[in-house]
Each structure stands twice: as structure tokens, then as C-alpha cells.
């Protein structure tokens, strides 16, 4: 099978491997440039790809994306291409499935390409960025109502092993739309380290919902080489940038699972004997992750957008682990899955309290969703936080001491989980429905408790006032 990369056969070629260590090759060579793509031919004639990550006058250090197993010092041949790693792009990528380094794996022909783009991209000039402000309706209340997604945002899902993030991702892909516009999303799916079963499930799922013809998948499986994962999200984002900035389409990029990506990063860093940062992850992991996550956004005056939903599993559900921690510092919020909600049968088990959408204020309100959205959401937040605190306190000191006011909040917390957060996998609620469930849940409170909502909005939307019942 042919590779998706440009090849320059006139490049320099060497068979002077000096050392092999972990995923790294050290080659004696002159005239090599930093960051260039390398083709490695194994003693058995197999071709692999690598990238120069350090170069001195006579030694080039190469990370081999497919790993270094079966390589040996004498018979391995190295060809330097003189080019950075590139992806061949065209509209023909749509509907296709590639492996984690960009080779066709769906049995189809090599797609015809119109251009070749450096997979590392270039930073968007901050001055050229448009502030994301178009609300994406996912049909999921806890997202739309409490932590809405907007076009051009990067909003990760922090999950844990065994939690239903796959179902959630699939539901978002199926239901996501911008209201009042016919435009559909192009879906770019970058899979890192997921199992073959999961990959098959996603693909069948996309086919079933009829989105496969506007989807492109780059799949690195759990059994595929770990170092390849460093490339996979970059291929996915390069394709996404082509669709959005060249073809003016709206692109939804799913990257799953970023935890495996970070582990590959750690592996390379360890092999380079770098001074490790927290928990063995390299000190530059923030910058490296940013070079992926920052490739989301919109251009002023441009018609396309790149919206990212990275998925990561928090090791031991620990949000302070470097992977979720650094991610949270880069992304525009996070949706956090909660094992406790999951155990109690709530789907999607997203806990709104630690979750956040930083672009919420820009994306909602009059003309976008509805003018009561922000304040209603603030009130629901307050009531749920109070309710959860009271419920926790009652677990220790018993329910006897609860005041009437306490009980209202306690019940609210239960009902909020049961009716607002909880919904079916095929339940596609529009924003009006989400907001009216919210108002109904607030109805038992005396109005003085609803201090986060303007009296005029209470008059207009509160079920007690009889208007606008959803």
C-alpha cells in the first residue's frame, strides 16, 4: 500500500545507524535538517516512517513512528526526504479510513490529492481569529443547557475507564447541528490506542447514522505502534484544516484517546533521557498538547471552522493527573464524566459542577439560544451545588435536621439528575426543551430563592406565570 506522504527519492540515503534505543534511531549523517521526514527500510525490506527530532553536525536522532522492533544496526537503511511530514489532501479523503500514519486501510484505492500540507500546521495569527460564538445544539441537556459547545471551540471529555464516552461521542456526532442552518458537519475522527472492537463500533455506527460519507477516520489501534500516535492527531487536524480553511466547511474533530497520545510522548522523552516533569511526563507536554488543541477555531471573515472534542481517560479518575490537568489549562472548558452518576444509572454521566464551557457566554442568549439561558443555567448550577452539598451533609448527620429549605434543594438535586442530566442515547432535545425542563425543576422553589434570575425573566419564563410552557 502506498503512503499518504510525499516522497523525495532524490533525498540523502544512509546505512550508518549507530544506536537504537527505545523508539529512537541514532544515525551518522551529514546535511540532515531538523524535523524532516525519514524513510526507514528494515532488514526485511519493510518501510517505516520517522522524523528527525534532534540533529548535530554528524548525528541525527530519529523517532520511528512504527517502532524500532526488528531494526538492527548494520542492515537498516535510512533515507532523508528533505521535507517535513506532509499529508496529501483533497475532498476525496471524505468517506475514507486510514491508519494512524495515513495509509489507506479500508480496501479502497489511494485517494487523488490536490495538495500536500505540512502535518504540523502553522499557528493561526491571533489577530486573524474570530471569537467563536455560534451555538452548536448537541441535543444533550447537560451540554446544551449547562456547558454549551460553540463552533471553533475545543471542549474535551474527561472520562474514566469503563465510562460511556464512546456512546456520548457517537450521540454528539449524530445530533450536532447549528440551529437554523442547513450546513452539516464534516467529521474527522483521530483514534489513538483504541481497541479494534471500538474502532469497528465507531465505523459501523457512523455508517448506520449515514455520516460516513462526510467522515474521515485516522485509526491507530491499541496494538499499533505507540509512537505512531504522535502523528495521528496531526494528520486528523491537517485534514480538518483543509476542509475548513480551504473548503470552507464546518468540521468536528474527535480525538480519542489523548491519554494514549501523552503516553507515547512520555515514551519518546524517556528514551531521550530528558529531565522528566510531573509523573515522568516531559516538561514540554503543555506546549506539545497546545500544538494540537490550539488547532481549533475560526478565521475572521472565513466561512469554515474547526471544533475539537478530544476524549481522554483520567488515570484512576484523577483530574489532577498531568494529562487532564494540562489539557484543562489549554482547552476552552471540559465535560467531566462522573463514576458515581454512572453507577446510579444516569446517562450521560456528565457532572456539570466541575465541567465548564469557557465560550458559553459568547455562544448563548438572545438570538442564539434564548435570553433566559445564561441566568437559568446559573440558577440551576447554584441549586444543584447547594442540593449536592446538603445531600452529602445529610448522609453524615441524617435527614432529621434538614430544614424545609434544605429539603427543597435536596429533592432538586435528585430530580435534576433524573430528569435534566439523564436522557436517552437517541433522545435529541432541542434547546427550548432543555430550558423548559430546567424551569420546571425550579418551579418548587419560592421565587426569592431564584436570586440569580432577573424578575422580568422569571415573569416571562417561570411555569408559575403560565407563559411559554415548553
Amino acid at each position, binding site marked *: 500500500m502506498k503512503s499518504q506522504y510525499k516522497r523525495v527519492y532524490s533525498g540523502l540515503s544512509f546505512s550508518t545507524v549507530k544506536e537504537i534505543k527505545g523508539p529512537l534511531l541514532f544515525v551518522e549523517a551529514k546535511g540532515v535538517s531538523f524535523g524532516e521526514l525519514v524513510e526507514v527500510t528494515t532488514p526485511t525490506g519493510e518501510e517505516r516512517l520517522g522524523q528527525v527530532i534532534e540533529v548535530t553536525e554528524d548525528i541525527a536522532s530519529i523517532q520511528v513512528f512504527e517502532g524500532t522492533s526488528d531494526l538492527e544496526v548494520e542492515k537498516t537503511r535510512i533515507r532523508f526526504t528533505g521535507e517535513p511530514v506532509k499529508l496529501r489532501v483533497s475532498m476525496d479523503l471524505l468517506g475514507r479510513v486510514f491508519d494512524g500514519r495515513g495509509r489507506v486501510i479500508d480496501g479502497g484505492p489511494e485517494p487523488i490529492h490536490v495538495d500536500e500540507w505540512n502535518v504540523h500546521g502553522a499557528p493561526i495569527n491571533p489577530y486573524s*481569529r474570530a471569537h467563536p460564538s455560534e451555538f452548536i445544539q448537541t441535543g444533550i441537556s447537560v451540554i446544551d443547557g449547562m456547558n454549551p459547545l460553540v463552533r*471553533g471551540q475545543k471542549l474535551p471529555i474527561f472520562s474514566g475507564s469503563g465510562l460511556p464516552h464512546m456512546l456520548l461521542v457517537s450521540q454528539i456526532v449524530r445530533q450536532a447541528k447549528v440551529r437554523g442552518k442547513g450546513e452539516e458537519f464534516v467529521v474527522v475522527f483521530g483514534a489513538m490506542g483504541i481497541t479494534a472492537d471500538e474502532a469497528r463500533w465507531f465505523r459501523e455506527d457512523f455508517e448506520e447514522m449515514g455520516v460516513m460519507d462526510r467522515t474521515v477516520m485516522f485509526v491507530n489501534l491499541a496494538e499499533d505502534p505507540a509512537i505512531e500516535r504522535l502523528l495521528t492527531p496531526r494528520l486528523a487536524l491537517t485534514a480538518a484544516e483543509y476542509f475548513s480553511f480551504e473548503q470552507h466547511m464546518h468540521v468536528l474533530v474527535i480525538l480519542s484517546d489523548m491519554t494514549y497520545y501523552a503516553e507515547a510522548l512520555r515514551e519518546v522523552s524517556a528514551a531521550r533521557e530528558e529531565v522528566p516533569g510531573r509523573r515522568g511526563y516531559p516538561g514540554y507536554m503543555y506546549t506539545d498538547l497546545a500544538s494540537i488543541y490550539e488547532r481549533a477555531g475560526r478565521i475572521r471573515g472565513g466561512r469554515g471552522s474547526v471544533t475539537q472534542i478530544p476524549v481522554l481517560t483520567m488515570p484512576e479518575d484523577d483530574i489532577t493527573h498531568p494529562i487532564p490537568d494540562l489539557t484543562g489549562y489549554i482547552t476552552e472548558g471540559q465535560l467531566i464524566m462522573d463514576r458515581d452518576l454512572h453507577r446510579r444509572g444516569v446517562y450521560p454521566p456528565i457532572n456539570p459542577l466541575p465541567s465548564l464551557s469557557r465560550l458559553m457566554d459568547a455562544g448563548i442568549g438572545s438570538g442564539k439560544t434564548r435570553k433566559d439561558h445564561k441566568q437559568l443555567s446559573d440558577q440551576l448550577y447554584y441549586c444543584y451545588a447547594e442540593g449536592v452539598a446538603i445531600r452529602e451533609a445529610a448522609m453524615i448527620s441524617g435527614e432529621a435536621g434538614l430544614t424545609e429549605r434544605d429539603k427543597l434543594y435536596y429533592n432538586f438535586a435528585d430530580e435534576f439528575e433524573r430528569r435534566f442530566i439523564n436522557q436517552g442515547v437517541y433522545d435529541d432535545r432541542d434547546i427550548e426543551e432543555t430550558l423548559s425542563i430546567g424551569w420546571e425543576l425550579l418551579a418548587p422553589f419560592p421565587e426569592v430563592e431564584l436570586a440569580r434570575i432577573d424578575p422580568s425573566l422569571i415573569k416571562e419564563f417561570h411555569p408559575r406565570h403560565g407563559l411559554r410552557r415548553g
Partner: protein
Amino acid sequence: MPVRGIISKVVGPFVTAKNVIGLHMYELVRVGSEGIIGEVIGLSGDNAFIQVYEETVGLRPGEPIEGTGKPLSVELGPGLVGRMFDGIQRPLHVLQGMAGFFIRRGLTPNALDRGEKWFLHPTAEPGSKVSGGDVLGYVDESPVVKHKILVPPDVKGVLEYVALEGEYTVEDDIAEVRWGGERICVKLMHSWPVRKPRPYRYKIPPDTPLITGQRIIDTFFPVAKGGTAAVPGGFGTGKTVLQHTLAKYADADVAIFVGCGERGNEMAGLIDEISELKIPGTDQSLLDRTILIVNTSNMPIAAREASVYTGITIAEYYRDMGYSVILMADSTSRWAEALREICGRLEEMPGEEGYPAYLTTRLAEFYARAGRVVTLNGEEGSVTVIGAVSPPGADFSEPVTQSTLRLVKVFWALDFALAHKRHFPAINWLTSYSMYFDSMKNWYEKHVTSDWVKVREEAMNLLREEEELRELVALLGPEVLTEAQRLTLEMARMIREYFLRQSAFHPIDAYSPPDKTYHMLKLILKLREKMSDAVERKVPLVELLSLPIVEEIARMKILPYDEFKKSVEKMNSEINEQIGRLIEKVIRGEEA
């Protein structure tokens, strides 16, 4: 003759060059055949260690490097305000014009537009003796910034010539100074090395608060003009929103925002907001006093390191004109991480958690450039620095937070628990502090009211009492509380909900003038006093809490200032009347 050498090693944004004897530490160099910009950050024998401000992919050993003989400098002159620059002061709007919406390598446009004309109003008299910092004239850089043209700090002598009133570009000679036989031409702009603090006569202790319109800050934890503050907080606790809010509402003459290794979308949002909003109390656009230095997290890390110096040097320049300047750095942790990466690559012995042993020194040098000073020409100017800190895992014991806390005098601790409840700004009132309050008491007494200190203390005591009572409840359950203690809890809740909580996105609530802040707090405390009295006379708390005045108090923060001002008296008498009626009712009941 510039020093020339060749590249011997490339790894990420770091390049080693050999045969470069004569290069200076921190000298700017041109790297490779494209001549991309780098800075010398280490010298060893005839080798130089260089950090490169642009993408290094494609560089190879053997390519040339060339010294420029100059350290990294910024251009100072009219044309800074209202603009967005990257970490090494390349104007981003110009880069867009040159390369489109992605940043391309190897472009080095001038920071200040050479073609733009400025109308100079000369004020100095030829023949007079001048020295660094003296004002030669001014141009109106924006409707709010009168940009004074100063004699550069290192120039002195007799003023031979001053240009006539009229239009000039930044490169035109507008004055000539003679020192002995030497003649020095002065232009609207001059350049200054970023790592060298600009001189001033002497520092004076800060005694004026920087009014921010944020109730919790202005009331409890004010920062002084010329002071330093740190905002540490985990992700999602509102560091950036708070920094943006200060950029918008703090009462400074010039605001500089350094987006250091943070999000691009955020910067787009900030510039949109700043373009739309007005400077509080005026009809002028905020953009007319703001300068943005932006190096997002995916832009080259070395330029991120430079960005804080670029920002503070520009801040000092406006300070030297006698202005009050604020500089927000979001986030200093990303800067520290850049230092850590450099330290790692230089194979220096690391200190704590891989950070260089000189981390505290660097932070100290940076924060030391804040201050209230008497400038070279005898005016008073100030630079206030507010640094965000992003501690990994929200753990404040990490090196950057700890080093910063030793240097700054105001600490706004952002708190996850508050953020989760959407209580913003999520500044924890029990752990935060301001060491300026005492030295600013006089100002408050003179400009706000004589009982400010007392009111503030009473409110803080109430919040502290709440904390103690909560601990009690957690241990023994709520039954143990007396009615008076329950009232304390309720009143503390009102202070938190109706006073401390403030929406950065509500058109009225976002900025609370000091006078409104004072009267809001005063009303809540008045309510407390009357309610305590009523509780003592056996009025049930439930009845007190459902009085209509409570709801009015709850909503006073969203009343426009004029309306609020008019209703203060009325609310005061409502408190007396409504509670008075309840007391009378109880007394009548007892009598019956």
C-alpha cells in the same frame, strides 16, 4: 563587523552554534539561510547557545548564523496603543497582511509603522538644557493617550533644534541635542533593550488603590497603583476572566495585556470586547488605552519567554510619561515553563521540579519592574503588575506559586469549590490577602468615607464567623444553632451572594463604582443590625427573611448606579419600617 558562525546542532527551538567568539550574552542573532531571529542565552568557549523565536523545522547544521550586535529591543513611540503584537513585538495585523491568517516564518516587519504620520505639538524651547526623560512635545496617540515625546534616557545636552508643529513619521528627526561636539538626533521613536529596566529617579511607596470596580477586590483585597498582585488558580477558576475584567475596568491610563502561552480564541474574545466597551465613566473606546502582547501556547516558546519583557518595557515607557499603567501577565506559569525548558536543554542543574535554580531571581527581577516612581523628569508614574499563575493540579505548593507569593503583596486565591458553584470571581475571602490596605487607609477615608475601615472589618468578621459556624454544623448538625447564629449564617450568605458574587458578563454588574460598592455593603450591614435586634426580640427568622426588602437587597447589584443612588435612602427606611413592623407585631402578641 558582525560575528559569524555556523550551526552545529538543532533541537526543537534551540540551536547551538560554533566558531562564534565575540558574540554577547542576550545578543540578537540571525539564524540559518532564512535569517530567522534568535537570542544568545548561553556561551561556552567558542560555542553559543541560542533560543530561536520562530519555527526551526528545516534548519540544518552547517547553515550560517550572524550576530546583530544588539540585544533584543522594542520600538517605543506612537503607534503602540490599540495594537496587537507578538512576543517579540511584531505587529500581528501587519503579519496578517503579509502572510494571511497563519503565521509564517522569517517575516520581520517593523513594530511601528514607518509611513504613519503623527501630529507633533512641540513644547520644549531650543537652547534649553535637556536630559533623559525631558518632554519635547506630544502627539495624540489616541483620544485618551497623550503620547509625550521624551528625550531618550541615555541622551543629554543642549537642545539645538526642535521641529515645528506638524506631521512627522516616527523616523523623522524632531529634535537635535548637542553634547560637546556630538549632535544627537531625536525622533518620535527610540528603541530600548527589553531585559534592561528603564531608569527613573526613585521609587515611592504606593498609597493609592487601583480601583477595579470589582467589589471583593476594592473592598477586601485592593491592589495599589504601582503594586504587585498574583492570581493563582486551577483551570476553570476564572483567572483569565478576572485578568480580562481588570484590563477592562481598572482605572489606569494605559493597560497592557500579555497573553503568554495561553489560548488564541480567548485573545480574539478580549480584543472584540475591548473594541466594543468604553472606558468606565467616559465615552472613549477601551482599545484607545490598551496594548496587547500575544504569544499563544502554540506559538514559539522562546518568544513566549520574551513576551513578558516586551510587555513590561512598554509599560515602563508609558510610566515614564507620568502615567499609571497596569500590566496583566496571563500566565506567568507558561513563562516559567519556557525557562524550565531552556534550563533542561542547556543541561543546567535543575532546582525544584525541573525549574531552573534562578526561577525566583527571574520572577523577582520581573516584579521589581513594577512600582510607583518619580520619573526622570520629576513626574509621578506607576506600573502595576498582575500575574496569573497556573499551578499544576491546583496545588499552590508548587515552585512558581511559592516563588511568586514571596514577591507580590496581593494574593487573590482562586478556589475550585466557589467556581463549581459558579460563584465568580472565585476569590477565596479567607485565604486571600492584601498587604497594601493599611498604607491606603488614608486614601479611603479621604475619598470614599470615614467609616470604610470599620465597615470592611465588620463584613470580614461576619464571613469568618460563618466559617466557624459551618464547622460547628458539620460536626454537630444544624440543630445546635441558636436563632442568632442562624441569622449570622444568613447574613454571611447575603454578603457572599448579593455582594461578593459579581458577574463579569452582566452589563451593569460587571463594574461597580466604589461609592456603590460601599453603600451596598453598608445596606447589608444595616439589615444585619436591625435583624439582630429583631431576633433578640423574638421575631422569627423565617419572617424576617421573607421581607420584601431582602429581595430588593438581593437585586441591588443589577441597578444602574444613578438608580441605585436614588434608592439608597428608600431602602434604608424600608429596612427600618419593615423590620419595625415585625417587632411591633411580636410586642403586640406578647401583650395580648
